[in-house]
């Protein structure tokens, strides 16, 4: 059984085995050493962390009760707004930008005295699958630093996998939580669209973006999800969690659960990944679940639909970066138009420019119907295909990524090749579903393999329950700790 790290550290604090300041200092020291190799953090916040830790120690000394996440050292992806702390989206255009307000998720966690260690690396504006489009250079995989951590939340995954944060929050637009979690051998949950507030998340594609936890264990994922999944009047799409806290139903029996596997998810995946998925199916069968294979032909178009819609929304969302109100501004220009064009051309990296251009192209007169409108209608077909699938099964099981973490620099030159790594993750965003990636083995090169459990809308309980049962059954067989960071 995978032990909850959050509970372990919380118990150590409550039992006075360690003070929160000592725990925080251990993590800060570990960051100092490991970050040279991992490049997981782009900003470290020792003052804020120690100040919070002192407040927690005072509560413990006063005999007050701690909430589940109180005093636990954690991190946030660098596109989640933190008042007075750099929030750059790992882009030159936002270098030095300090928000004047907090994202709701950070307001919620800081109210619980979560200890923020710093902000973590990501692909620029969350556009990428390897973390290599970051203005600050990519994050490394803690299991082999010559390999990528994945993306776009590569820094969070590298930090949690490298034991230099207990948990972190990432964002997932097309797989950006689940894919790096899979590459780094940890757990990444993309909640249902609308279950967690996105207020203060710097937008990439608003109809797809979702904040969620990256953790070492499924139980930790449930604890963090419960903490952040409440209604927020600041996000008009946020209804919050539906039903009881997920932690209440995490350990329910799954005998008789129907697990569907769409055959399309298994096409084109590497053999080493297929072997792990097949083994996971055997584990589920031994737990009394039924495996049902079926066809979901609508998935065939998910990837082009995703890139058309995400880029269209990005071209609109990134229109705000003009160098006037905040962010980078070019040094010489003759008029406002030239200032804006030069600012954007110098401030955005190559991948961001490509996606803005593609988005503008598919929204422009003459192409709108053929691309954007057609993709929107196909999105509806994919949503209905999943709705129909969940009439016949409780959850869907699929690989998270068709391969294991690739070597640094090996994919960035070919955009289509890089986009294909998202093929198994984007359908969940298109349909607004919850999906969790959990480790399920190792590839031939020893790098972790992840699988996704996907549920119907607002069924995080079912998804995490199925994931916990698997994790509990296989124990440490599919998990190995990296050589980096804290091990108490």
């Amino acid at each position, binding site marked *: 059984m995978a032990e909850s790290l959050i509970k372990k550290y919380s118990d150590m604090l409550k039992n006075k085995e360690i003070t929160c300041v000592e725990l925080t200092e251990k993590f800060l020291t570990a960051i100092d050493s490991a970050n040279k190799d991992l490049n997981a953090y782009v900003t470290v916040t020792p003052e804020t962390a120690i100040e919070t830790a002192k407040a927690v120690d005072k509560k413990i000394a006063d005999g007050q009760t701690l909430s589940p996440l109180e005093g636990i050292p954690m991190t946030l992806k660098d596109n989640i707004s933190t008042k007075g702390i750099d929030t750059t989206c790992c882009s030159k255009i936002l270098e030095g930008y300090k928000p004047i307000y907090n994202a709701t998720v950070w307001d919620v966690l800081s109210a619980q005295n979560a200890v923020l260690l710093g902000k973590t690396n990501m692909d620029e504006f969350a556009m990428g699958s390897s973390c290599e489009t970051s203005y600050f250079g990519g994050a490394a995989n803690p299991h082999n630093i010559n390999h990528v951590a994945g993306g776009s939340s590569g820094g969070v995954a590298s930090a949690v996998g490298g034991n230099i944060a207990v948990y972190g929050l990432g964002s997932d637009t097309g797989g950006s939580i689940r894919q790096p979690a899979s590459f780094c051998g940890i757990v990444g949950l993309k909640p249902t669209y609308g279950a967690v507030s996105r207020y203060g998340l710097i937008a990439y594609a608003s109809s797809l973006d979702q904040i969620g936890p990256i953790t070492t264990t499924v139980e930790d994922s449930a604890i963090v999800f419960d903490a952040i999944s409440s209604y927020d009047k600041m996000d008009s799409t946020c209804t919050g969690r539906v039903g009881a806290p997920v932690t209440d139903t995490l350990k329910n029996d799954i005998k008789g659960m129907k697990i569907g596997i769409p055959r399309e998810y298994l096409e084109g995946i590497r053999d080493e990944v297929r072997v792990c998925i097949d083994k996971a199916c055997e584990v589920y069968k031994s737990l009394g679940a039924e495996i049902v294979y079926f066809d979901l032909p609508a998935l065939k*178009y998910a990837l082009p639909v995703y890139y058309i819609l995400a880029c269209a929304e990005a*071209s609109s969302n990134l229109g705000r970066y003009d160098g006037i109100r905040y*962010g980078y*501004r070019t040094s010489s220009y003759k008029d406002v138009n030239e200032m*804006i064009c030069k600012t954007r051309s110098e401030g955005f990296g190559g991948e961001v420019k490509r996606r803005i*251009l593609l988005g503008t192209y598919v929204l422009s007169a003459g192409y709108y119907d053929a*691309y954007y409108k057609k993709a929107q209608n196909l999105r*509806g077909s994919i*949503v209905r295909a999943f709705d129909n699938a969940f009439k016949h099964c409780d959850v869907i099981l699929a690989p998270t990524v068709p391969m294991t973490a690739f070597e640094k620099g090996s994919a960035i030159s070919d955009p289509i090749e890089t986009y294909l790594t998202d093929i198994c993750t984007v359908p969940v965003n298109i349909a607004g579903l919850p999906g969790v990636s959990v480790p399920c083995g190792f590839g031939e090169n020893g790098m972790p393999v992840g699988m996704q459990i996907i549920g119907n809308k607002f069924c995080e309980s079912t998804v995490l329950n199925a994931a916990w049962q698997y994790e509990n059954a296989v124990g440490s067989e599919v998990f190995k700790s990296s050589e980096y960071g804290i091990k108490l």
Partner: protein
Amino acid sequence: MVTHDDVMAIARLSKLYIAEDELDEMTKAMDDIIKFADTINNAADEGIEFDNINNLSNSFRTDEVVTSYDREEILKNANDIDEGHFLVRKRV
């Protein structure tokens, strides 16, 4: 087929400059991506317009007057300000 002229026209709309030495690479990348995106035109369209994923409808609440951000706070991240305004000076 995406051409240099297409890329330059789209760049103008996007308020981006594409340098001469970036144009070939950007045009090829755009062409590859558009060809990939074109595969959706092989899909049968069910003819149903998509609205939103969670069947969301407008949720109205009472309009409340709350304290907004201080002007000084909002101007903190600006490159250039003058008497409480964002400023764009001529700089050649």
